[in-house]
């Protein structure tokens, strides 16, 4: 089986995220970049499927030069090869353009499964897997808390507001996974050493047959008009419980007209 897993480098979860004054894009330089937490589950799921059913896992990432670290991280977990789409013209791309770039990189490579995390911790849109499925014209099996493979069919449990839906499709398919699905492994020392020798192909927008004018901030179909830091919330009242803690909350809620 040929499995692709799409990963993104994002600012460290705990880092303060800010937009840049000059072009309202996310500052990706200052904070440490890490593999998007939710993509770790995607990598783990890809590896588990390859281990159980045989196959090869290719990591695909679009991002600036330093995103190469993120591709290596996934390789050190055990993926076999990487594709890094890196091009200055991509800066400021919206989800529409990002999905076009990923779809171009994934098309016609014979992937049976294309696995994503359910969202990125920076943009939090949760639309890229669906957009890539739309562009490739393949089945969309997203928000999976469980994935199982039987022959050429893949079945997932899609987390819903009311419980879950069991959804099945013939491969190829785009899958996204939620964090309940598995426990991502840590890269071993051996894995880290092996990752250094694994092949990573670096592609530019032109290599994908895309027009540079169709990506990047100028081509985005939505634009930021302005942004501002929300004024910090005034500090609240914190009291310690002297046997009347519950009653004090009740008084506060009465003042605030909740009771």
């Amino acid at each position, binding site marked *: 089986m040929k499995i692709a897993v799409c990963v993104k480098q994002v600012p460290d*979860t*705990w880092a303060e995220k*800010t*937009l840049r004054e000059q072009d309202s894009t996310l500052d990706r330089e200052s904070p440490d970049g890490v593999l998007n937490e*939710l993509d770790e589950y995607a990598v783990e799921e890809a590896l588990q499927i390859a281990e159980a059913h045989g196959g090869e896992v290719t990591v695909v990432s679009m991002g600036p030069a330093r995103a190469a670290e993120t591709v290596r991280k996934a390789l050190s977990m055990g993926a076999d090869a990487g594709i890094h789409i890196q091009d200055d013209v991509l800066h400021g791309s919206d*989800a*529409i353009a990002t*999905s076009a770039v990923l779809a171009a990189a994934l098309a016609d490579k014979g992937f049976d499964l294309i696995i994503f995390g359910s*969202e990125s*911790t920076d943009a*939090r*849109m949760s*639309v*890229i897997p*669906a*957009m890539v499925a*739309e562009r490739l014209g*393949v089945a*969309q099996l*997203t928000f999976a808390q469980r994935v199982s493979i039987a022959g050429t069919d893949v079945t997932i449990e899609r*987390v*819903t*507001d*009311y*419980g879950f*839906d*069991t*959804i*099945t499709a013939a491969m190829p*398919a785009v899958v996204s996974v*939620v*964090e*309940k699905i598995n426990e991502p492994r840590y890269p071993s020392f051996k894995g880290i050493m092996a990752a250094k020798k694994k092949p990573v192909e670096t592609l530019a927008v032109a290599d994908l047959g895309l027009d540079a004018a169709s990506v990047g901030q100028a081509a985005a*179909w*939505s*634009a*930021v008009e302005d*942004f*501002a830091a*929300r004024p910090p*919330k005034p500090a*609240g*009242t*914190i*009291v*310690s*419980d002297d*046997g*009347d*803690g*519950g*009653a*004090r*909350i*009740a008084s*506060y809620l*009465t003042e*605030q007209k*909740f*009771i």
Partner: protein
Amino acid sequence: MAKVLVLVEHDAASGSVKKASLELLTLARRLGDPAAVWFGAGSTAALTVLGEYGASTVYVADGDDVKAHPVVPMVDVLSALVAELSPAAVIVPSSADGKEVAGRLAVRTGSGVITDAVDIDASGVATQSVFGGSTVVHSKVTSGTPIYTVRSNSVAPEPAPTTCTAQTVSTEVSAVAKTATVVERTVASKGGRPELTEAAVVVSGGRGVGGSEGFSVIEKLADSLGAAVGASRAATDAGWYPHQYQVGQTGKTVSPQLYIANGISGAIQHRAGMQTSKMVVAVNKDAEAPIFELADFGVVGDLFEVVPQLTDEIEKRAN
């Protein structure tokens, strides 16, 4: 006046229109003439409420194919309506389905999309609250038909009575929609409490609750306030409370009037799902817990002492 398409969600069992959909109709009126889009059965019973909130038309797509396949049939129906009506905008809820519908529709119709808006003004400028609520962004779609996903509890639903008429639309779905099939729907028991994402008050429990029995303390407080119950991932992962009540980055995003966090430390992933609550009350025995940074009112103490006392007080004051 150009139409504004609103994807209306309704309770699968009762058929009642979700409050969040009435919020979307309220926003839609700022941009044009709201038209509801309804998937599945039960639209006739909803005509009154849709009309009351300003929808002059409801487009009804009710067919087996719409139910049998996930997400894409909604995109098929909406994209046909976009082509036919050239609406001023399409507004869908910020649910998992809603965001995916929005994303695919954007690709298919050559339109820009803005997700997780908390407001939209008459010129189409959307407000988003990003990075855990630390930054407010205003943005606008610059290509095609603007598509927005809007978070629930962002605006108060306001009635604007009109007569709503139903129009049946084709439910023939595309070949790509048929590539995936729903074979079973598993509905977890819901209970009598308000829906988490719509509730005005949410009472949550975390690892500090200590076990599934401990959640009865949380539920009692919730019931005294007519609130929904939420949980941190530590509590859902431990199996103390069902997963669909998880609040946070990978759970539900809630923005109630009041959020009461009990035995929850306030990890960044939890905050991502509740940071836009209008008021936060926290009970935690650790004075250093980060949840207190967000709290309007906090008590440092044992939740098993504080919460039952609070519940008693509320019941006393209510009587």
